[in-house]
């Protein structure tokens, strides 16, 4: 069967990134998944076993001292060597900051083309076909690569399911450090809050807050409703700009795109750029005191009211029902 390479990101502390599942699941629909991993120390047996569980038939483990100190370049070197070794029909990376840069450089280096922000993949008689969700889900577009290696960046959280488990065979290589044109990493500043809430990109329910919350103290209301519903927290750009919440929570055109079962917008006007990140949600609920707010145009259930009176009652009602 034809090989499909996946770039598996590992954090500088050694954990396999959450994007690995979707990448290997997508790869398995196209061919035989090969996990390409770059690390400073040889991969632990546990990691290899985990990658096998997620569907990797082979693991190309590239070991280099540069892994934690040089940005992206080691991943590109490892991928281009793996392309030589495995002659894949496609290369898949996460559409993450590192993944897309590695994909871009690889495509130039090996003479391929990038298909970006892919939400589904399929094989059409051996041709890799990528599906994209464009302009906030207003269009579904399919694309292919002609005359070169397809390099796909896969939208995080978009691919459902898991590849069939495999027992991964490991191929360990040592990469010589590339020194030219390097961006050096001086320090990692990890996010402190290890939240127990679900991950925004894949959560079944998302509660988002906007400028209508008025302050970071008031933003607690969003957290309370989210916790009552077991939901992830999102935000509008205005809420992020105002410092109510971290940028990683931003939903929309320039933030995360989500498609949950339920999306609740609190104090969010529903600017087109916000809707671009959430209008493919199954059910949309909006609470806003302005009855003309555009968010109501896409809401399945809208309440024209004050979030500070409606939301506490909603939390109580939800808690009462779950008891």
């Amino acid at each position, binding site marked *: 069967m034809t090989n499909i390479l996946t770039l598996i990101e590992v954090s500088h502390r050694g954990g396999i990134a959450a994007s690995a599942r979707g990448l290997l699941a997508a790869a398995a629909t196209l061919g035989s998944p090969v996990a390409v991993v770059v690390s400073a120390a040889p991969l632990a047996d546990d990691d290899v076993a985990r990658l096998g569980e997620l569907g990797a038939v082979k693991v190309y483990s590239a070991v280099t001292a540069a892994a934690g100190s040089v940005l992206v370049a080691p991943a590109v070197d490892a991928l281009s060597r793996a392309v030589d070794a495995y002659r894949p029909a496609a290369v898949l990376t996460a*559409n993450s900051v590192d993944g897309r840069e590695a994909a871009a450089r690889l495509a130039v280096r090996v003479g391929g083309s990038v298909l970006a922000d892919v939400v589904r993949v399929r094989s059409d008689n051996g041709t890799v076909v990528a599906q994209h969700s464009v302009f906030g889900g207003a269009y579904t577009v399919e694309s292919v690569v002609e005359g070169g290696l397809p390099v796909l960046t896969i939208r995080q959280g978009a691919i459902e399911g898991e590849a069939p488990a495999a027992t991964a065979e490991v191929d360990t290589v040592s990469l010589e450090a590339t020194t030219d044109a390097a961006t050096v990493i001086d320090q990692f500043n990890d996010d402190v809050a290890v939240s127990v809430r679900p991950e925004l990109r894949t959560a079944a*329910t998302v509660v988002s807050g906007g400028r209508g919350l008025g302050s970071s103290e008031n933003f607690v209301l969003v957290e309370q409703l989210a916790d009552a519903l077991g939901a992830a927290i999102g935000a509008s750009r205005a809420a992020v700009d105002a410092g109510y919440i971290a940028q990683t929570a931003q939903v929309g055109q*320039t933030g995360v795109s989500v498609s949950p079962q339920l999306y609740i917008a609190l104090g969010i006007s529903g600017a087109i750029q916000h809707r671009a990140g959430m209008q493919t949600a199954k059910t949309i609920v909006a609470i806003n005191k302005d009855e003309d707010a555009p968010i109501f145009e896409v809401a399945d259930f809208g309440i024209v009211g004050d979030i500070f009176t*409606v939301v506490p009652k*909603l939390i109580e009602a939800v808690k009462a029902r779950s008891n």
Partner: protein
Amino acid sequence: MKIVVLVKQVPDTAEERKLDPATGQLDRESTDLVVDEINERALETALRIKDTNKGTEVVAMTMGPDQATQSLRKALSMGADSGVHVVDDSLSGADTGRTAATLAAALRSTGFDVVVAGNESTDGRAGVVPAMIAEHLQLPLLGSLISAEIADDGVRGVRQGEGGTLNVRAGLPAVLTVTERFPEARFPNFKGILTAKRKPVITLSVADLGVAATPSRSVVISTAERPPRAAGRKLIDDGDAASELAEFLVANRLV
């Protein structure tokens, strides 16, 4: 120091954007075209260096059809010193690979110490062109920065990673991309608008640059429009709306 800022003209995100169903390409007729906001932030980054260091030269570069000169004029009126417009009929519908190869050639011929671009455009959202350019030019990329210090001996920045941020640095020349965490751009003032008309804009064609057609390319094979969402129920809160919503959520098995 010479800083080239990459600028892209895009459909205004404040309006409904359209694709041509036959080609899958952007329908340029249907929306107003503007300078992508992230490129204005990139330009602002360069102009702030020029504000404090008069020896700085800021060049705005774009690739796009004739009307893309408007975006260069805007950049010049904000304070860029000159513009480079890569324009050629054969570039219509260029994919990211072709765009990057062409811009890399234009950058080589223009010369620079630093290239500043946006982390991703609002229309393509691929976020790959700056990294492709860096690969063509064999340069370091400091991508997706939330802050940067650009000096004669190199660039330092803070990059937004997946589980936190990273402090990164590279020597010059280098390519860097900014995110929305960078400050909003200044507005062009009256003097800026007047002087912009006298500032030079160079036009470059594919033949001028001698870029060969890329053998590999991405091609759209189908485009389908989704039906728009319909609005549902809207209640004015009279004290009971919260419990009605709770019932709705229960009835739809959403809690």
